[in-house]
């Protein structure tokens, strides 16, 4: 989605006011949980739906 919107991690970090390290944790799939406020901010910045950036993978 970031590639589609042509936005880098740094730019996204500044837009949604989340640290680069936290965004990196999210991007690499290491996050244990996501706050709705964070999800809302990212979807707003990327102009997309949660389903566009979240995917269920069975362990």
């Amino acid at each position, binding site marked *: 989605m970031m590639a589609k919107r042509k936005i880098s991690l740094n730019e996204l970090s500044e837009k949604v006011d989340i640290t680069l390290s*936290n*965004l990196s*944790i*999210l991007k690499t799939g290491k*996050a*244990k949980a996501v706050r709705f406020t964070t999800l809302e901010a990212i979807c707003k910045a990327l102009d997309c739906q949660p389903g566009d950036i979240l995917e269920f993978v069975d362990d």
Partner: protein
Amino acid sequence: MNWKEAWKNKWETQPVLMLLTIVIWSIFIGLCIKGGTLLFTSLYSLFNPEVAQNLYQGLNLSVAREWHLGYYLGAVSLLLGILVAKAYIFFLVILVFLTIDLVHPFSKEVSVLISRIGKVTVEVGVLIIIASGYFHWLSSQTLHSPAPSGFLGGAFEYLIMGAVIYAIALVFKRGVEIQTDNDLTV
């Protein structure tokens, strides 16, 4: 940040913790001095048996020394083992106070240290019980009480304290898990 800056930062942000660390340091040094003195006098008593009359603060093992060198060394080893274990407890406490950060207190290193403190405390209690039984037997054999009361008190208290600390360590471990989840919550 090097250790000097880290130390200075801790003094400014957590002065109570650092004051406690100094108190614990002094207890640790005291125990080391006690253990070192006992070790020195015991080794010296091997060459000069008179020293065994007062190894440390009235501890008189001269009769045991004359009766059987092996049992004498056993008694001294038990007492030294107890002192070393006690000193190790306080050393671990020092490490806890130096490692812990009140901003992020629940870390794996601190959890492991607290768990180890609990185990060593229980071990001290067990050692004291064994040593008490040994000295009781020694007294019955030599018909002389060596008066090691300063070394052999509080076995039950150490056992209870060890169990409580271990329980706290388990709670702390759960805290670490919750903190990790929190840190990985974006």
